[in-house]
C-alpha cells in the first residue's frame, strides 16, 4: 500500500513535470523543473538514500537548474515564450506518451516485481564512501577528469572570439 507522503510526492513530481513542458514562459518552466527535481530527491529520501538525495539537491536543484535559468535569461525575450505548435505533432506526441505509459506499465504490473518487498535494513551510506575509495576509485578519477574537461569544453564553446580584448574591458 502507498502512503500519503508518497502519493503527494508523485502528484507534485509528475504535475510539475507536465507544467515544465507546457507552461508558456521558459522561466516558469525552469522553476517547475526545479520542483520536479526536488520531488525526485524526496523519492530518494523515501527510499532511505539520504546521501543520494542530498547529492541530487545540491547538483540538480542547486547548480543545473540555476544554470538553465541563467541561459534562459541570456536569450532574447520573445524567444522564451512558446510559439504555436503543430497540432498534429502534438497529438501524436500525447498518443506516444500514453502508449508508452500504458505499454510499459502493463508489462511491469504483469511482471513478478509486484511481489518484491523488503524488510531488510537500509543500506549504510558509509558503504558507498568505502566503495568510492576502493573498488570504484579509478572510475571516480575518470569522472573527475570528465567533469573538468566538459567544463573546460563548455567554456571554450561559449567564448566569443570576435570580441577583442579591449572591447571586452568595456
Amino acid at each position, binding site marked *: 500500500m502507498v502512503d500519503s507522503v508518497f502519493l503527494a510526492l508523485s502528484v507534485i513530481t509528475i504535475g510539475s513535470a507536465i507544467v515544465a513542458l507546457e507552461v508558456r514562459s521558459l522561466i516558469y518552466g525552469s522553476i517547475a523543473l526545479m520542483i520536479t527535481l526536488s520531488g525526485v530527491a524526496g523519492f530518494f529520501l523515501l527510499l532511505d538514500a539520504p546521501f*543520494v538525495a542530498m547529492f541530487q539537491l545540491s547538483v540538480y536543484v542547486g547548480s543545473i537548474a540555476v544554470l538553465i535559468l541563467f541561459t534562459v535569461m541570456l536569450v532574447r525575450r520573445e524567444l522564451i515564450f512558446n510559439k504555436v505548435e503543430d497540432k498534429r505533432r502534438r497529438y501524436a506526441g500525447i498518443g506516444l506518451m500514453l502508449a508508452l505509459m500504458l505499454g*510499459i506499465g502493463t508489462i511491469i504490473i504483469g511482471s513478478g516485481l509486484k511481489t518484491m518487498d*523488503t524488510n531488510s535494513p537500509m543500506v549504510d551510506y558509509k558503504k558507498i564512501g568505502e566503495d568510492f575509495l576502493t573498488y570504484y576509485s579509478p572510475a571516480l578519477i575518470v569522472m573527475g577528469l570528465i567533469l573538468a574537461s566538459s567544463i573546460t569544453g563548455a567554456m571554450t564553446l561559449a567564448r566569443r572570439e570576435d570580441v577583442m580584448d579591449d572591447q571586452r574591458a568595456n
Partner: protein
Amino acid sequence: MTNALIDFILVSVALLAIGIYGMAVKRNAIRMLFGIEMIINSANLNLVAFSRYIPNSQGQTLALFSIAIAAAEVAVGLALIIVAYRMYRNIDIADFRSLKG
C-alpha cells in the same frame, strides 16, 4: 517500508514517458533539454529503488555517478545552445537546419 517497489517503478515510467513526449514534440532547444533531464531522473529513480529493495549499495553508487555525468552533459548542452543562438539568433531547432551534415 510501506511502499512497494512497483510504485516507484510506475512513477519512473510516468516521468520517462513525459520526458519522451517533451523531446518528441517541443521545438525549443531548452525545453528539449528539460525532457532529457526528466529521462535521466527517471533512470536514477529506478537505480535507487532497485538498490533499496535488493538490497545492495551498488545502485546508489551508480546513481551518484549518473548524476555527476548528467551535470557535465547539461553544461556542454547549454554551451552548444548558446553557440547556436549566437549563430542563428534563435533557439528553435527547426532553424538549425544547416547544422545537418
